[in-house]
C-alpha cells in the first residue's frame, strides 16, 4: 500500500509542545522550551535565548512589523520557522564604530547611511546569512518566528525560568 506521509511543522499560532517524563534527577537539566511558544509570548523583535553553549546562542525572535536596524562584527544567521519575513541589508558608509572584539548584534541609531544592498524574502524553513558588519532589519506583516544563530550580545535576553519546564 502506498502511504502519503504528512510532515508536521508548527507555527507561532499553532504548536504542540512535548515534554519530559522524569525518572530521576532535575527536569531543569534539560532546559526544555519551545521556540514558537517563546516567540508567541515575546515583544516584537525581542530576542530570547533558547539555547546557550558558553557564549554561543540560539535565540527565538518574534518578527512583527518593522524591526530596528542592527549590525554585528561577525556573521549571524536567521531561519524563518513559520511565516514570511523580509530581511533588508545596507552596506554602511562607515563601519569604523564596530568593535571587532565585540560579540553579538547591537542596535543602530536609526537607518544607517550607506548603499541599499537588497532584500531576501524568507518563508518557512528558509535561512539567511546576516553578514558581518552589514546593517540589517526585518519586516513581517504578521507575527512570525525567527531563530537566530548568534552570540550572546546586547540584544540577547535570558529568561530561563519563564520559558523552560521546571
Amino acid at each position, binding site marked *: 500500500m502506498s502511504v502519503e*506521509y504528512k510532515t*508536521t511543522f508548527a507555527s507561532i499560532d499553532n504548536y504542540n509542545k*512535548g515534554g519530559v517524563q522524569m525518572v530521576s534527577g532535575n527536569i531543569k537539566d534539560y532546559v526544555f522550551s519551545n521556540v514558537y*511558544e517563546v516567540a508567541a509570548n515575546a515583544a516584537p523583535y525581542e530576542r530570547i535565548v533558547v539555547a546557550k553553549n558558553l557564549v*554561543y546562542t540560539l535565540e527565538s525572535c518574534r518578527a512583527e512589523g518593522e524591526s530596528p536596524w542592527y549590525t554585528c562584527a561577525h556573521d549571524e544567521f536567521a531561519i524563518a520557522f513559520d511565516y514570511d519575513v523580509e530581511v533588508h541589508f545596507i552596506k554602511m558608509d562607515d563601519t569604523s564604530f564596530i568593535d571587532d572584539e565585540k560579540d553579538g548584534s547591537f542596535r543602530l541609531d536609526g537607518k544607517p547611511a550607506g548603499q541599499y544592498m537588497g532584500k531576501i524574502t524568507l*518563508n518557512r524553513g528558509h535561512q539567511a546569512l546576516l553578514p558581518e558588519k552589514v546593517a540589517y532589519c526585518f519586516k513581517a506583516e504578521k507575527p512570525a518566528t525567527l531563530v537566530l*544563530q*548568534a552570540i550572546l550580545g546586547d540584544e540577547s535576553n535570558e529568561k530561563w525560568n519563564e520559558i523552560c519546564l521546571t
Partner: protein
Amino acid sequence: MTNLTAVVNNEQTGYQNFSAGSFTFRRDEYFAYIDYPDGEHVMPIDAFLKALMRDIAWGFFYGSVNFDDVFGTTNHYGNVDMFIGSMNEEYVNNGKDFMENFPSEELMEVFQAMLSDWTIEGFDPFAAPQETGTAWGPKNGNNDEAISRTRQVAQRMIGIPGDTEIRSDKTGYTVNRHFKDVDQSQPVVDAEPGFEDQIHGFNLWAHLSRSDVTWNPSIVSICKQSLLCPTTEEFILPVEHGNDRVEWFVQVSDEIIWDIKDGKSSKPRASLVMRAGDVACMPADIRHQGYSPKRSMLIVWENGSPEIMEKIKDGTVPRVGVEF
C-alpha cells in the same frame, strides 16, 4: 575451563576476522562476536554495523559511542578507548569490565576495513530500515559506495559560491519519500546590482528533505565556533551517545522520543518527547538514544571551541547547558 567462544566458520561465510589489541571481531550470518581476554560479547550484525558506521562517520564523535549496554568507544581526541562493560554498572562493580586504548587512526583503520568487509551488497547502514536490504547472510559483494559517504560540512554557509552545494536533483539528492510534502521553493533574493554575491539565503527544510542518510548531522552554517548541524532521523539512533559535553537539540518537524540514561551506570533518567519547535539540552553526564517514528528533521547544535576540549581535560566542563 570450558571454551565458550562461538564457532564461526569463515570458510563457509567468506568473511574475515579483525583484531585490534586484545580484541578480536568475527561475524557469521546473523551476529557479530567481540572477543576480549575475559570473554565474548555478541550483537546482532545489523545493529553492530549501523553503530560502527556512525562511529566511523563521526570520527568517534564527542564522548562515548555505546554500540549497546556493553560495548563501545570513548573519544579522547587523538586516542580512543575501546571497552567492554566500562559504562555498565554491573560489569564495573563485578570487575568484569575491560578497556584498551588505541591511537585513533589505528583503530579507525581496523573499523573501516571491518565495515567494508562485513557490509554486503544491498545493505546500507546509513539508511532507514525500509530503505535498505538486510545485513544477513554469507559474504556477498560489498557496499563501499554507501559506507564511504562523508557528511557535508559548510565552511561558512551552504550554497554560498565556493562553499558546499545545496542538495538538489541535479546534485544527486532526491526528496525523501517521507518529505514529499515539504516546500521546495527557494527564498526570493532581490539583490541590487553589485551585491548579488553578498546576500545569500536558501531553503534549509528543502535541503534536509533531500538528506540520503539518517542520524548523521551535516554542518550548514558556522558562527565562529557555533556549528548548526541539522540531520534527518528515522527509526532508532543506532548507538547510545554518551555525552562528554552538553549538546542541544531543536526539533524542526514531527517527533522524536529520547531515552535518557545515566552516562556511566546506564540507569534510566528520563524520557523526552520533542515536537516541532521544541528545544532541549542533553546534559554532559548522560547517554541518549532517539526514536523517530516518521522521518523527522532535527537541528543538532554543537560548539566546536577548543575551550570545550580544555574544560573536558581539566574536569570543568559544565554538566548542564544552563543553571537557573
